[in-house]
């Protein structure tokens, strides 16, 4: 696969690995955070921790849009979908996320019309081909995905499609990073910056991290070579006591971002005054909702949404794991009450969630451990 295989080349990975070992000061312990859940997934999938020296610690950040969604929002969405005329459409990522009364897949097993879509335009297509039903698209994602939802809504409006609405849970990445840096428990040396969000917002929005907080940040691609090269670039900055924004993912990320995508977002969305993030609490100006001009396609205005607030079970430590304060295995429920088969929190369900990544790829690597699958 072009633009993929080259970045998995063993020889080059070896070079990058050697350079990292050369640059990393043995007297120092580096704490680097990868913000984006896709990077977390890649790190585990490619076994990159095995390649790094032990004094480089990768802390998983909150950039998993499924993980940061409070349970109440899922319940609200599913409540709407319980109506017989509604088709609930969402990405596959949402299907196993537990709500208070079960996940979307469990609702489907109980007879609700739940469909997996790959694109918001597929949801719109469902609306066109089911004129007697209402298609409600449960939208999630950071700025990578929001422009696509926006463009889809613009199309719905232009075509006058009435039986379509969006339940909008789009969130923005900068407030999440700010919340991490404001957190007193956090000591970080640098950031591996989000790759695909940056194709939309560009690299400028990260400048304050370097300038005000004094932390280097390298916007990174997702292949092993990308991540390793980004770590090389971070180490170089740290050695030189510099802090700047660099773009490792230049083949894809434009420094200025994608103007058309930003324009679509501005046309359709506005910032909510505040939004509740799982684990991070209420953050102001951190999430999107549909503008007045698109009220007719806003599921929260078309339907009566209860606005349910559901707190996580007390024992679950999703918040601390999300912030990188705790490692997944340190959560009391990890691997026992909370596993991918019967997840308590979204971090165990979402493929980007650090708990799921750790569980699926890592936690049984320790020698001599016989893990027996315990029934639910």
């Amino acid at each position, binding site marked *: 696969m072009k633009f993929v295989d080259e970045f998995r080349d063993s020889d080059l990975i070896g070079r990058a690995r050697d350079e990292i070992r050369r640059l990393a000061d043995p007297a120092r312990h580096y704490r680097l955070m990868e913000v984006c859940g896709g990077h977390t997934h890649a790190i585990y999938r*490619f076994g990159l921790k*095995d390649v790094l020296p032990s004094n480089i610690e990768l802390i998983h950040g909150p950039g998993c849009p499924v993980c940061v969604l409070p349970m109440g929002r899922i319940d609200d969405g599913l409540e709407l979908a319980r109506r017989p005329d509604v088709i609930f459409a969402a990405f596959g990522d949402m299907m196993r996320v537990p709500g208070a009364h079960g996940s979307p897949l469990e609702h489907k097993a109980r007879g609700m019309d739940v469909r997996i879509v790959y694109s918001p335009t597929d949801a719109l297509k469902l609306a066109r081909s089911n004129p007697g039903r209402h298609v409600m698209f449960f939208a999630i994602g950071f700025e990578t995905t929001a422009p696509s939802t926006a463009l889809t809504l613009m199309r719905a409006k232009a075509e006058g499609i009435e039986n379509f609405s969006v339940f909008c849970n789009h969130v923005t990445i900068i407030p999440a990073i700010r919340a991490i840096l404001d957190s007193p428990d956090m000591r970080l040396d640098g950031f591996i910056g989000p790759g695909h969000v940056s194709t939309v917002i560009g690299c400028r929005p990260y400048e304050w991290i370097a300038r005000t907080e004094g932390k280097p940040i390298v916007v990174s691609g997702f292949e092993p070579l990308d991540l390793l090269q980004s770590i090389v670039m971070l180490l170089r900055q740290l050695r030189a006591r510099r802090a700047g924004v660099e773009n490792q993912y230049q083949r894809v990320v434009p420094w200025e971002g994608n103007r058309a995508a930003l324009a679509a977002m501005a046309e359709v969305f506005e910032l909510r005054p505040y939004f509740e993030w799982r684990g991070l609490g209420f953050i102001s100006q951190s999430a999107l909702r549909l503008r007045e001009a698109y009220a007719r396609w806003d599921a929260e205005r078309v339907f009566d949404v209860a606005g349910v607030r559901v707190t996580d079970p007390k024992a679950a430590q999703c918040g601390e794991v999300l912030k990188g304060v705790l490692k997944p295995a340190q959560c009391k429920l990890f691997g026992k009450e909370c596993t991918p088969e019967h997840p308590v929190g979204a971090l165990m369900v979402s*493929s980007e969630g650090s708990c799921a990544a750790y569980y699926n790829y890592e936690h049984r690597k320790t020698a001599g451990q016989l*893990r027996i699958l315990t029934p639910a």
Partner: protein
Amino acid sequence: MAHGAGGKASRRLVDGLLAPLLYRQSDPVEGDRLADAARVLVGGASVAITTDSFVVTPLAFPGGSIGELAVNGTVNDLAVGGARPVALVTTLVLEAGLPTETLVAELRAMRRAAGVAGVAIVGGDTKVVEHGKVDRLYISTTGLGHPLPGVTLGARSVRPGDRILLSGPIGDHGITILLARGELDLEADLRSDTRSVFPLVEALAAAAGPGLRWMRDPTRGGVATSLNELALDSSLGIHLSEEAIPVRDEVRGACELLGLDPLHIANEGQFLAVVAAEAAERGLEAIRRVPGGEAAVVIGEVREEPQAAVLAGSRYGGTRIVDMLVGDPLPRIC
């Protein structure tokens, strides 16, 4: 229902519920009882018997249809159980209103597949149920086979150092079905790999002799699930080499696009075998000489550690755990 997708839930259903409630110590079976197959002693002779049911949407897809799956699936269960498939009986559950042409087409498909596989269909039954009580057509087949001489299989005979063989590229069937459903708007030149693997198994058994320890057809839940079952049953560790695992470009492309792992995708025409190190090379060559076996490869080996786990390693030294599937493989965007 997650139980149908293979993987953890299915295994628990069979081991935890069916086995304790149905099986008894005094049953006239020989050797280890596998989840859905056994060797029964009938008048002193050992007969292999297995059963399975087949549910698929759409009924017909590139490379085959439910009829073929129903024949080849049971034929393959017999084959990887170390037996020559001899005869099948079948039950078809039909939804009222199913067009006769559809039924006829599937019966013809079954006849054809049985002919190619060299197995006789000696009995059958049908049931018609109310519209809506079944999704058009379900087929169940029970197969009888003649155990191959000198072949004793079981997870308990697997040893550290044994090699893991795979007969060919993975993921073709599952991705073909996913694309055939038409919900994801993806197109590719892919066909289901449904076929009888018995000729390959027979060649391997003849060449490897007592070095052949264990076999499985990685259907629902894919290679990951089958190898995890082996790891659990043997309490040993399985080490795979990522690069050695054959995946067609189109399957790879679809999996990358949808965020799926080929190791979790169902196959209907492949099998896994564990072979002692000294017999692995000649076993592999024997498979490759059979038409349809050319792509067979060694994908890994058995080790002492980590117990009951499957790992996959890359050339640059990274390793990851390969877990069993939980529920269906779901496309993801994150």
